[in-house]
């Protein structure tokens, strides 16, 4: 085995896997708490990127400010979807399947609206240079270093918030036993709103990291959303660290598969492993078996 290759693939796998981890946590926290299969997470992802691009190209804002605008836009879209679409349906006792289908409808319509508004072209963000660091045989860019560190800080912050604060514990209570949680006076609406704020903000960050090194396109959101829920399920619904590790494992696995296989087999390996894990351990790697 080529150790230099292994080192580079490991570093790339960690970079990619970290963004998957963030996607997994962002999807997982919403899914675990609200039980909504939030496919329209893709909307927050794309909205954040386009928000930043718009702020930079139309408002002429600098890079940092554009990122802030993007974060706010992505977050706003996520919360709006909860407030405008999901909540009224939940109040009318809609089934989870019909809420999922609404989510699907939103995620189908939105990219096309984006395309009508911004055109189908790739959009780029005006951004500072992205120096490359060389560590022996391994290279890594500045955006990747900053992004990866930021991601794990955010994941640590969110999990700490959930475990240590009173409000965080009410989220856990809502997740594990909604009836009991409501009975002891936890306001489910408030919890859901906060969960959507956190989830959408995290996915917006993932989107902005990607846009900082790539481009924005109208359809950019779907794939990360799929990855997010795969990571969340792999890790085990309800376990945020599980989702994070699930994402990291996905990234490393697909990267390491390049040790032996052509890269076009990467997705086959990843989805195949996921398929197997689902069959063998449906509760996810760190999830607890349902009683």
């Amino acid at each position, binding site marked *: 085995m*080529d150790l*230099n*290759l292994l080192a*580079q*693939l490991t570093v*790339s*796998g960690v*970079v*990619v896997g970290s963004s*998957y981890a963030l996607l997994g946590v962002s999807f997982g926290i919403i899914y675990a708490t609200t039980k909504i299969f939030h496919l329209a997470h893709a909307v927050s992802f794309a909205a954040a990127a386009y928000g930043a691009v718009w702020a930079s190209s139309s408002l002429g804002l600098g890079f940092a400010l554009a990122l802030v605008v993007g974060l706010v836009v992505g977050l706003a879209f996520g919360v709006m979807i909860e407030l405008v679409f999901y909540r009224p349906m939940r109040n009318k006792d809609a089934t989870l399947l019909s809420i999922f289908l609404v989510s699907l409808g939103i995620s*189908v*319509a939105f*990219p*096309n609206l984006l*395309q009508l508004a911004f055109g*189908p*072209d*790739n959009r*780029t963000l005006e951004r500072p240079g*992205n120096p*490359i660091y*060389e560590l022996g045989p391994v*290279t890594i*860019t500045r955006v990747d270093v900053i992004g990866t560190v930021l991601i794990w800080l955010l994941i640590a912050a969110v999990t700490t918030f959930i475990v240590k604060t009173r409000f965080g514990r009410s989220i856990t209570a809502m997740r594990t036993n909604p009836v009991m949680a409501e009975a002891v006076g936890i306001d489910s609406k408030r919890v859901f709103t906060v969960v959507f704020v956190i989830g959408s903000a995290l996915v917006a960050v993932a989107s902005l990291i990607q846009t900082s090194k*790539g*481009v924005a*396109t*109208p*359809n*950019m959101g*779907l*794939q990360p959303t*799929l*990855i997010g829920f795969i990571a969340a399920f792999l890790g085990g619904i309800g376990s945020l660290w599980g989702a994070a590790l699930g994402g990291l494992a*996905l*990234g490393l696995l*697909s*990267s390491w*598969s*390049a040790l032996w296989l*052509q*890269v*076009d087999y*990467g*997705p086959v390996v*990843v989805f195949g492993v996921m398929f197997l894990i689902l069959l063998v351990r449906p509760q996810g790697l760190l999830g607890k078996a349902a009683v």
Partner: protein
Amino acid sequence: MKIRRKDTPSQTFSFPSVDVSRRSVLFGAAAIGGAAALAACGGGGSDKGSSVSTAGVNSAQADGLNAIFGPGGKEGGVDVKLAAGMMLAVTGQGSFYGKVMGNGAKLAASQIKAAKGFNYDISIADHKSGDVPAALSGVRQLVTQDKIRVLQTSFGAPSEAIVPLIAQNKLLSFNGGGSSPGQAGKEYLWQTRMIFGDDPAPGGLAWIAKTYPDAKKLAIIGTQENGVAGAKTIGPEAWKKLTGGTVVANEQHDVGLTDFSSLVARVKAAAPDAILTFTYGDDVGYLVKAIREAKIEVPVMGIEFTEQGAKIAGAAFDTFNFATDFYSPDNENPWNKIFVEGHQAAYGEPPEYYGANYYEQVFFYWELVRRVIAAGGDPTDTDALQKALIDNPVFKSLYGGDAQTAGEVTFNPEDHTISKPMGVFKVVGGKPEKVADIVKVSSTADPATALV
């Protein structure tokens, strides 16, 4: 992870044949019309009686054309009406290409009419940027509703899919925008552009071998869609003959990949002296960027240039070269000048590659009609037209030539491909600049002769 972006098309496959499998166009458009997947509903309405604009045609141009192609009137086929179909990306992500191809052909029809040549009567059908069922439905519609005899088709997968329909209805067909090996040698179907990737590869490698004489180890990066032969056989064999070197890596990826880090890591581990890539569309932008971010500082030879790719790669693209049959509106060739002038007048912009190819095709038909008339045959009989093509496979071209004479292209009656002038280009400040002329060479010839 690299999930195939089947549903996230990119505007940018500047070479239409690429598209096609992710070509589902807009996420939802494909969804609805999974239909797309299904049928694209008959390939849309055919654009019957598309008005052949006479804008952009003046008598000087008509005279110029008569000077190049011969007089109008009876021998020019002024009495002949040829019902023609165009199978284009009218809608979807590739609709830009549908537009310029249609524009090129319509301009040709009006210029030929002005030069008292044949009546080229165009009906258009839509394959929705590469949907196979849409293409099949569209051809059926053109054949049954519009009674077409000849067909200008585009894109790779749709064109491959309609091969049986072309043969069955004896539609003499030209494809100038999606030539794939699967279409080679098929009855009544002729390619009017170089086979993407495969044909220019020896020339591109010859340029690298000459420019970087120390390069011995080559890495090849490609996809399963286009340039397959180039990556598997043509490229490696040419490299061996040119340098005596070896191919140290031969990597494949999905079309639509954005994260090339693992692939590039594999390439880096092989420590190549040069890279040949058949990656196209947006992907090449991501690839070149990843190569430079991995500090692989060797020459990279590609097979196409796209604005979208340039956007993605940013400054990294200025270290990129590519080899292809690139069309330049600045070519001094007198026919090309008439074309550019007419295009500018009719559409307010200079023509580009695909407009040129589909414009040129109409003149191929005209030339064939003239020859059949001269031989006393029926100019709407496609067997007669094809026989005329096989008997003399040389045609005038917008490519090549000089200030006095039009260029020349030659069809290969064996496999129905074409030979056109090609070039090696480098990117300077985000724009392509020609650095060498290359030609297609046979697999047995010395690849060094590909470099003119």
